[in-house]
Structure formats: structure tokens, C-alpha cells
């Protein structure tokens, strides 16, 4: 194994901590957070529909859609609904997290991409408005026509409803359940190749839209289910080991240290390029152990399979990860 002669000023290691810069209630149950790096440097790029994994101080991981403007490289914005029935992540954010606190993050990842279309029909239910907000901005920038059906229990429970109506007027149709149940099928009527639908909201809404657009061409109606995102294993805050198959060597990885850095320090050849979990150059086979994926490349199925990971950003959930270089 070749000894490594480090670059004189190696690119900065990925920093996976964000500082809460602003915390603002937007409804009784929704708080709007602005997050950025402590040193004011650029955050990883993202596209509308993307989410980040937020790693709370107790190690719990929650996913939140980014609702700000991808043109702002310094800030991520998310909105968090208080879910008293959940496992406590959202309550922690509402009750305990304050401006100046640090939280870990992974991603951003996008499973709900805006694909090109001359026209869009957006449907949002409650907190499901969050991934739709940057899509509206992108649709406008793309020169597409769009409208939005925004559903909620009451106007006062619907985040950003006043801004949306003020900025976009009649393109935004607000429907509250005190006005009776809406017939989604009349909103999303016959398939039109010039129209794509993007829906985010609770399961009941997703099911209704799914049924209404069942006859559409696959890919023209895209759905993102907003679930009580209190799922997922807590992220490790303790060191772990990486065993390199065939080398007889085990490398200790400290919390906060990139696996790629630990492997290089131990003298292994590992090529990285973007150092942000985006380009895929450092893809590494995982033989055993459970990776903690922080990249923007793998889809949910590939993540669950756990047969590879990207050591520039990703880590381990298990005590030991066995990899093949």
C-alpha cells in the first residue's frame, strides 16, 4: 500500500454541522428554522424537492424538506410541524432547540424531483407545502405555467398561506376542511401530456391524488408522502471501526472524522473528488455492517440494501463496518 503524500492544503473536510440562525413560529404548530454553517461557508447544493437529514443532539435523525431558495448557498430553511404523537423529535425542535444551537445534518437528497413540463398543478396538504415552495419558484424561473391547490384544516393552521396568496393571487387556491371535502378528481382531471402534477401531504391526500391520477402516464403525477418522519435509527455519536477486507487492518473512526480521512490517515489509497457525497467517485463496497448513508446519490432501495457507501460523507451505524477497497 503506497504511503500518501498529502496535498499541501487539502480541501476542507466535510463539515456536517449546522447552526440554528433563526427560529420563527409561522402557525400555532409550525416553526420555521434557518440554518447555516458556523463559519459562514457554502452549503451543499440542492434542487427543489430535496430534503436534509437533521441529526438532533440526542442522535435522533429526522428528514425535512428544504423550502428556501437554492440560489442562497449559505442557508437552509425548513419548517417543522409539532407532532405530539411522534417520538419526540419535533417537540424537541419546538421546545428546546434555540438560535445558536448546533445540529448535525446529512444530504441533501432528492426523491421528489421537479421534472420539466410546460404546465404544473401542485397540490399541498398542510406541512406538505414545504417541498412545493421551491418548486413554485423554479416553475416560474423555467417559464412554466402553474397553479397550486393548498389544503388544510383551517387557514390559521396552514404555513405560509398568506404569503402565497399575496405573492401569487389566483394561482393559489386555498381549501380548508371547514369548507367541506374537496373533489380532487375535479382538480386533477384527464391526463394531459402538457401537465405534470406534484403532490405532497398526508397519506389520505396522497391516496386521493393517486386514485385520481391512476390513469395518467407513469411519471406525470408525482407524490411525496409526508409522514410523521419520526422514523429511522438514531445516528451514532460514538467512534466506530472500519475493517478493510483482505488487509487484516481495522481503522478507528472518531465522531466527526470523515471515514475517507481515517482510511487515508491509515495509509489506504482512496480517491475522492467532490468530498460532498455527490459525485460518486469514492463508492466503496460494504461487506458487512450497517452504513449510515449521508450521500445524495443512492435511492431508498439502494440505501436499504446497504451494499455500498460513500466514505467521503457516510458513516456507520454499527460498531464495525467491513469494506472492500
Amino acid at each position, binding site marked *: *500500500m*503506497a*504511503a*500518501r*503524500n*498529502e*496535498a*499541501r*492544503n*487539502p*480541501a476542507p473536510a466535510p463539515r456536517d454541522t449546522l447552526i440554528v440562525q433563526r427560529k420563527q413560529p409561522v402557525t400555532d404548530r409550525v416553526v420555521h428554522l434557518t440554518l447555516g454553517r458556523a463559519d459562514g461557508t*457554502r452549503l451543499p*447544493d440542492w*434542487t*427543489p424537492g430535496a430534503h436534509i437529514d437533521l441529526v438532533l443532539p440526542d442522535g435522533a435523525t429526522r428528514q425535512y424538506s428544504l423550502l428556501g431558495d*437554492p*440560489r442562497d*448557498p449559505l442557508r437552509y430553511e425548513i419548517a417543522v410541524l409539532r407532532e405530539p404523537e411522534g417520538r419526540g423529535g419535533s417537540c424537541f425542535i419546538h421546545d428546546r432547540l434555540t438560535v445558536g444551537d448546533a445540529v448535525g445534518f446529512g444530504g441533501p437528497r*432528492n426523491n421528489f*424531483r*421537479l*421534472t*420539466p*413540463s410546460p404546465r404544473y398543478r401542485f397540490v399541498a396538504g398542510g406541512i406538505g407545502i414545504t417541498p412545493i415552495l421551491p418548486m413554485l419558484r*423554479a416553475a416560474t*424561473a*423555467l417559464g412554466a405555467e402553474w397553479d397550486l391547490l393548498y389544503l388544510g384544516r383551517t387557514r390559521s393552521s396552514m404555513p405560509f398561506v398568506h404569503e402565497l396568496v399575496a405573492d401569487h393571487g389566483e394561482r393559489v387556491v386555498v381549501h380548508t376542511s371547514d369548507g367541506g371535502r374537496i373533489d380532487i378528481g375535479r382538480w386533477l382531471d384527464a391526463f394531459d401530456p402538457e401537465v*405534470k402534477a406534484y403532490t405532497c401531504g398526508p397519506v389520505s391526500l396522497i391516496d386521493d391524488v393517486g386514485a385520481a391520477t391512476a390513469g395518467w*402516464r*407513469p*411519471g*406525470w403525477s408525482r407524490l411525496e408522502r409526508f409522514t410523521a418522519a419520526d422514523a429511522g435509527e438514531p445516528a451514532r455519536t460514538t467512534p466506530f471501526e472500519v475493517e478493510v477486507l483482505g488487509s487484516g487492518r481495522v481503522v478507528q473512526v472518531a465522531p466527526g472524522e470523515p471515514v475517507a480521512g481515517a482510511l*487515508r490517515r491509515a495509509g489506504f*489509497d*482512496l*480517491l*475522492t*473528488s*467532490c*468530498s460532498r457525497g*455527490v*459525485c*460518486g*467517485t469514492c*463508492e466503496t463496497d460494504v461487506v458487512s455492517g450497517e452504513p449510515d448513508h449521508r450521500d445524495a*446519490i443512492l435511492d431508498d432501495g*439502494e440505501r436499504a440494501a446497504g451494499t*455500498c457507501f460513500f466514505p467521503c460523507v457516510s458513516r456507520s451505524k454499527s460498531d464495525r463496518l467491513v469494506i472492500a*477497497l
Partner: protein
Amino acid sequence: MTISTPTAPATVPTTDEDPFSAAVLADPLPFQHRLREAGEVVLLERYGVYAMGRYDTVRSALLDWQGFESSAGVGITDFRTEPPWRPPSLLLEADPPHHDAPRSVLAKILGPRALRELAPRWQADADRLVDEVLARGPEFDAVEALAEAFPLRVFPDAVGIPQEGREHLLPYGDHLFNSFGPENFLVRHGAPHIAEHSAWVIEQCARERIAPGGFGAAIWAAADRGDLTTEQAPLVVRSLLSAGVDTTVHAIGAILHAFATHPEAWAMLREDPGLARVAFDEAIRLEAPVQTFFRTTTRDLVVGDALIPRRRKILMFLGSANHDPRHWRDPQRFDLTRDPSGHVGFGMGIHQCVGQHVARLEAVSLVTALARRVRTIESTAEPERHLNNTLRAWETMPMRVTFA
């Protein structure tokens, strides 16, 4: 340092040197050294454009797509005032949000996971090509016999375009990369034939021309799923044919030249063939096949002490950044013990070469095949440069090998 008004960037050093002259293109390193030493940003008086050549500056500017846009063209021409000579690329010459969908589609199709299937086939192809070349004898022109032959053998098949007419690919790419520079002797040389090459290339991008199973078919399948429009699909296929041939040819030329001139590195690779990936990126660092790209400022930007006004072209010297001694120790050395990670030979940020895994796999397959059969490599005559306004390339590279 104070800046008086945005229109008087008095603090910017200037040079009247022409980076697109035959002399600088043939040997850009001395010019790039002067550029880096002159400052973080230098005004190229002759063209009225700015230039940057230091690693940190170039890398930061490449990441900052918000400040340094691509949709005004990544050549010297400002698409907002002069019409482009071909429909702009949906990737290279686009910014978010227009850039988002084509990029995500290609990133998936050309990602390392998608290439796993190709790897054993390309290794077999490379072994076969090397056998054929060596069967003709120990002396050959490495540009023609290997650097051009291998990508032309495997890449158009991987895209799925027809056999007939592939001779258009290299001259099309060569002119495209010339056209990012000023209208000089190189552009004038290619201009009379470009319409014909260009027409052939775009014809091959049509759905009915594309064979099933390859990258091209995957792009059309993405259009069927609605990830792209059917108007976008042929242009995304075109990106593969524009950016995926000449660049890889010259990347392979760079690594072969590096091994021919660094016998100790070749010996090291033969001992540890796992070094092929690192060797490829070290060769890209050393001799970035794409030397330069322009960006356009979207607002007045302060870089170091310099103020670059809005809507000005700025030339990023990727090759120079990869030779900046502020970042790289002994940068002119091809060194397999170095960690080349972070070089900007593929760019950086949202426009970082989406085909880098394809290029790396092609080069690694070929170098691995050579390492199995060849004990030593040496030049038998001074190799000749092929000049291009953007690319660093070889015209000929006479070599002699000894068999393992």
C-alpha cells in the same frame, strides 16, 4: 485596498499575453505560472476578459454557480449578446433550475453503479485491443493505436449510435472545444466543415437511431418517464457525443505520456495494478485535458483584491489550478504516491464532469490491459502536440514497449 467605482477595477493586474496563441497552447505552463503570480484575478487585455489560475480561487469560483453562471456560454462568446453557433448544451451551458433535470438524469445513467456491468466488458475489449496492437510489434503511435482507438471502439457502442459516420466524432469535438476560445487560426481551420459534422452528430441523437441497452436508450427512457422532455432528450444524447469522446482520448493520451516519461511510476503500477484509478486522476491533474472554461459574472463580485463587474467573462484555468504550488507539492511531477483528490481537472460543483466515471473506467481498463502485457514503455521520438483552444492534447506519441 479600496475600490473606487465598479467600472474602474484599478486593482486588477493586466497582461497582454494571449493564452490562445500557438506558443502558449503548445506549452501553457510558463504562462500559467505568470498568471498565478500576477494575482488572484488578472485582466487579459487582448480580449477584455478576466482570468484566474490559482487553485483556491478557481475552485471557489467553480463552486459558486450563483455568482459565475454558465448559461451565458462557457466560451468567450456571451450568448446574451451574440447567438451561439449551435443550440446550447442543456448541461454545460445551463444554470439551475434548467440544469437540474438533465443533470440528474445523466448523473444516474453515467454513475458508477450503472457502469458496473460495463466494467468486465470494457476490460475484455481493452485486453483485445492491446493484444492486437502488440501483435503488430513493439513500436506504435500511442495516440492512434490506443488513446483514440479504445474510446472510439467502446464509447459510441455504449451510447448506442450507428457504426457508419463515426469519423465525424473527433473533428466535431475538436471544433466544439476550439469554439470556446476566440475566433483564431484554430476556429478558422475547423469552421468550413463543422456544419457537416454537427448535422451528423445531431442526427444520431434521434430515438430511431439509438440502439437499445445503452446510455442513449437510457436517456430516451428517461424522456418516456417524464424526467426529460422529448425535445431535451436528443440534446442530452448530444452532450455525450460532444463531451465524451475527445476529452477521454486526450485523458488517455495524458496518462500514457505520463507513464512513458516516468518509468518508476509504470513499475509501481505493474506491482500494484490497484493504483490505476489514482494514476488516472493524477494524469488528469497533471495534464487536464480540458484546460479552461469561461464563466460569466451575474453581479459585481469581489475576488481577493479585485472587483469583477457584472456580466463579464472570466476564464478559469483548470490546468493552472492543478499546478498551483500553493496547493500541490512538486506539482509538475507525476507522482503515484500523491493523493490527487480534489483536482479541478473535471471541474467542481454542479457542473463537475458528469462522465468522469466513464472516462475513468475507460482509462483504467486500458492501462490495466497494458500493465498485464507490457514491462516498460518509452518514447522513441519527441511527441507532437495537437493544438486546441480548450484541450491539452497530443497529435502523435511514438512509443516502444517491451513485453512482460
